[in-house]
């Protein structure tokens, strides 16, 4: 079980029941659990959607799309059943928050799924949990069984006449399945190959039915919005970036951990105050602000608010909330190589720019790091990466290209220091394969 941390600047909304025994349904109910569901059952579906829309809740999986708006795309009438799909395939390097939500507050996820179902008129919800998180399946199964036994899910939810089933579903190891169309393929028992869009899942999703796909943290936020109101939630964050976020602090930090902070919290403060700064008297070199697919920020670029729009303005992304800080002993060529090795491993090979691009980039970076780099390779890395952007079915190609482009651009000198047989100036051994 992962250990919990705390900091005075935290605003605990999604994490407010962490460490309080809320996996137990009685305890969850004592802590206001399932009261939002009771409230939502008395609301019109459009009123639920509007409340979520006005709260400024944006997708916590990384894309940052307004959740209420996403729900509003689901057609009112549908010949095929509609579904809610909770994306718990958390695999973005740097991200370890959904795991904590499942572990400490599984009923909040279930409650969010049922409320989402009420909003769009679905009658079944699937909670997809990545295969590595096996211990969470037992927690989820127990939580779902408890919710059925109490009438919070199942036939005639709390006597309302509304039926809604909730199931969990286990994966078996695949980063790409975190992409929404690949996630549906995986749930349908296939390889996680992305689907071409349009049609979007809100119209044609699971088994052809309209489907809402939301991240675990997104859905776990929903009951708090229904209870606290859109205005309260929106005011916790910055304009158009409502609420709080679970930030996963990792890398070269004195106090790594998962902290819930308001949207728009200053990144520099997050590193030096919340995260306790850089250990061993070393200096910060770079920050991965929101998971490995985000362009890196240098130590000079971190005085900014952590919300979707500010990060986009700074040329990066807020992503999935996975912040990795690295100090000045880190070889950025090696760091780029390790990121590319990951994307090469996870590329499904469906689209050529991603399949070939990640492979050639890994080979080039590996040669570079081992002292066999030539000058024109620096531009070749940029050229290859830029040619992957926007040319693949799913964002995995972009996810591989974006950090690479930023590393070459911002740390070009480190590539030059590796040229023509010079040993790695950071004296790291080679990435083993």
């Amino acid at each position: 079980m992962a250990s919990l941390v705390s900091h005075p600047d935290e605003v605990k909304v999604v994490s407010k029941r962490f460490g309080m025994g809320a996996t137990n349904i009685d305890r969850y109910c004592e802590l206001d659990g399932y009261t939002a569901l009771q409230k939502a059952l008395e609301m019109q579906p459009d009123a639920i959607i509007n409340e979520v829309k006005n709260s400024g809740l944006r997708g916590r999986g990384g894309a940052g799309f307004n959740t209420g708006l996403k729900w509003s795309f689901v057609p009112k009438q549908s010949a095929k059943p509609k579904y809610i799909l909770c994306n718990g395939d958390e695999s973005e390097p740097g991200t370890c928050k959904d795991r904590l939500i499942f572990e400490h507050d599984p009923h909040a996820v279930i409650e969010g799924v049922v409320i989402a179902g009420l909003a769009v008129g679905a009658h079944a919800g699937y909670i997809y949990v990545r295969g590595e998180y096996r211990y969470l399946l037992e927690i989820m199964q127990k939580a779902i069984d408890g919710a059925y036994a109490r009438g919070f899910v199942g036939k005639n939810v709390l006597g309302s006449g509304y039926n809604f089933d909730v199931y969990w579903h286990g994966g078996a190891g695949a980063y790409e399945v975190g992409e929404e169309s690949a996630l549906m393929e995986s749930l349908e028992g296939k390889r996680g190959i992305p689907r071409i869009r349009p049609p979007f899942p809100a119209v044609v999703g699971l088994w052809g039915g309209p489907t809402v796909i939301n991240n675990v943290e997104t859905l776990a936020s929903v009951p708090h919005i229904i209870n606290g109101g859109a205005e309260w939630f929106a005011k916790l964050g910055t304009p158009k970036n409502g609420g709080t976020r679970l930030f996963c602090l990792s890398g070269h930090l004195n106090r790594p951990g998962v902290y819930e902070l308001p949207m728009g919290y200053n990144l520099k403060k997050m590193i030096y105050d919340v995260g306790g700064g850089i250990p061993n008297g070393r200096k910060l070199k770079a920050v991965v602000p929101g998971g490995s697919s985000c362009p890196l920020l240098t130590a000079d670029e971190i005085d900014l608010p952590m919300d979707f729009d500010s990060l986009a303005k700074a040329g990066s992304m807020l992503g999935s909330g996975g912040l990795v800080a690295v100090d000045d002993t880190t070889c950025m060529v090696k760091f780029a190589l390790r990121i590319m090795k990951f994307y090469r491993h996870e590329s499904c090979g469906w689209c050529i720019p991603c399949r070939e691009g990640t492979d050639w980039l890994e080979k080039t970076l590996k040669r570079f790091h081992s002292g066999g780099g030539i000058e024109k390779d620096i531009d070749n890395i940029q050229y290859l990466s830029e040619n992957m952007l926007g040319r693949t079915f799913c964002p995995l190609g972009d996810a591989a290209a974006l950090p690479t482009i930023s590393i070459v651009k911002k740390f070009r000198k480190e590539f030059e220091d590796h040229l023509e047989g010079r040993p790695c100036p950071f004296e790291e051994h080679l990435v083993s394969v």
Partner: protein
Amino acid sequence: MALVVKAFFSMKFSEQFENRFVRMLAHYPTKRSVLVPTLLYAQDETGYLSPEVIHEIAERLELTDLEVENVISYYSMLTKTPRGKYNVQVCTNIACLVRGGEELLDHCKHKLGIRNKGTTADGMFSLEEVECIGACSWAPAVQVNYDFHENLTTERMDEVLDEYRAKN
């Protein structure tokens, strides 16, 4: 349904597996949807996905063996070759990398005397370098089968391996 399943198929899985299999089938509009979790549950019991296991699951879900193999090859946790009793999975992705993930992997290689994806002669341990396992804030981290071991040092890693060895 349970009776039909049991009467038709010869491959022996545990009662828990069979119960879960029947229950899961009722959760989806298509049979095929249970494939990925079912393969992992089968592998948990048989150690790896042998041609017999693949054939059995394919028959149950009205798929061809090839369709099942096609799915197996996509998911990194599924394997068609036996692993050790304890599969030591060392994460070396970025958050673990900068906190000693590679040193931990090298240490395990020496300690166990095997390479990446190798298995010890006694079949006790296998070693695998893996991608992010979702333990970034508690890096470096290792999973042994499904158990997480976090904030590791090489000394602590030795203790972890010894604990598993002592289980036998």
